[in-house]
């Protein structure tokens, strides 16, 4: 298989990469770039653990061929904080105890960030929909929702 050259911006940094035609975005991030904060659960878009923000939209990176992301911008959990500071959402997750085993946490945080960027004052129902693409098998949803509510505008 001939490799193809792609250019993507990952967490604000432009990367030029040679990828296999069937390389998936999740494997590019984890294997080629070492960004293992993006998790692999099911590899078929059910669990959401591989969620990243691609061109401003939350997507399951296991269902995105890396070549499809060519020319795009990707934010992973490693890019959520700025200048060594945690994102307010990350602080809220710590303060509210919204992390149990931690496997879904990166995807939950990115889903919540995506939600709040589009809708700074979400209702409870909108928060639930916003994180509905990520499964927490510790079932720690209540704390996760409380953490998101605590930094939603108006609180």
């Amino acid at each position: 298989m001939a490799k193809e050259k792609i250019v993507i911006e990952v967490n604000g940094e432009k990367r030029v990469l040679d990828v296999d035609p069937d390389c998936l975005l999740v494997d590019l991030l984890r294997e080629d770039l070492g960004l293992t904060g993006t998790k692999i659960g099911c590899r078929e878009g059910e669990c959401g653990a591989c969620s990243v923000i691609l061109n401003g939209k939350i997507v399951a990176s296991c269902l995105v061929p890396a070549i499809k992301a060519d020319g795009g911008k990707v934010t992973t959990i490693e890019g959520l904080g700025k200048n060594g500071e945690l994102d307010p959402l990350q602080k809220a997750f710590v303060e509210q105890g919204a992390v149990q085993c931690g496997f879904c946490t990166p995807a939950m945080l990115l889903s919540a960030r995506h939600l709040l960027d589009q809708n700074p004052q979400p209702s409870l129902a909108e928060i639930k929909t916003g994180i509905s693409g990520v499964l927490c098998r510790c079932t720690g949803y209540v704390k996760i929702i409380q953490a998101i509510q605590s930094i939603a505008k108006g609180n």
Partner: protein
Amino acid sequence: MNLKTAWVWSKKPHWDKYYRPETLDEALAILERLWEGAKVIAGGTDLLAQIRKKEQEVEALVDITRIPGLDKIRMEGELIRIGALVTHREISQSPLIRGKALALAEGAGWVGSPQIRNMGTVGGNIVSGQPGADATIPLLALGASVKVVSRLGERTIPLTAFFTGPGKTVLDITSEILTEISFPALRGNEASATLRLAKRKALALPILTASVVVSVDGEKKRFDHVRIALGPVAPVPFRASDAEGVLASAPISDELIRKAAQRAAEESNPRSNPLRGSETYRRDMVAVLVERGISKGLDRLEVKHG
């Protein structure tokens, strides 16, 4: 982690070549050249999972998402035209669709999860040919047709004639690409609704999805016509035409709505299924959702009924 678990976990979908045509002509030429080895990919949310499970074998993927002009929702005269690459998220949030085809916005809003709705396209939802496709069922009720283009020209196919079996359609995937969906915008005397029954409120395939379009006469005393689309309670998503016939031009009453809903249940052909319930249960639920759907349509038209 034992070896078997590790193997399943690491199993990746495979293909040899990934094409990114910039025009429809280029895409069609690639399909012609590669014939059965190539598959069109848009959002990829169905296709990649199928390739991974080896339900589909492909040598090459032809990504059509860089072809311009297939990602618009627009109104042209009486018709709403939706490009095949419009995503479920775009449909569910479109003011035009919410205003003139609410059942479709509701159906598209049920697909998968935010992650899936951001990538998955309405064209893909139709081409996958799944009997429980949440965006396809409302399109059937809205009387939609699809435009299909090949090197030889284009053809327009009513959705009612598009599906031939589970995962099967009349589309020749070796030479044709679905480019557009169109249907008449609902008028003032028409309303629509999509109702859904599933094990959970998110990320769950439907046990039943029912879409209805209701139209009434000027005095709001009689139905004009009613269109009812259902899935997955037969090998393909379908219109419950016997039930529609019960309501056409008839005086509005709850008794008649119940009769039509019962007829829709009789027209359905579900099988007992460990995920979706017994045949009897599924048939009963058809009657329940059709009745509620028609009532909801009437409520949206502010028609009193008893």
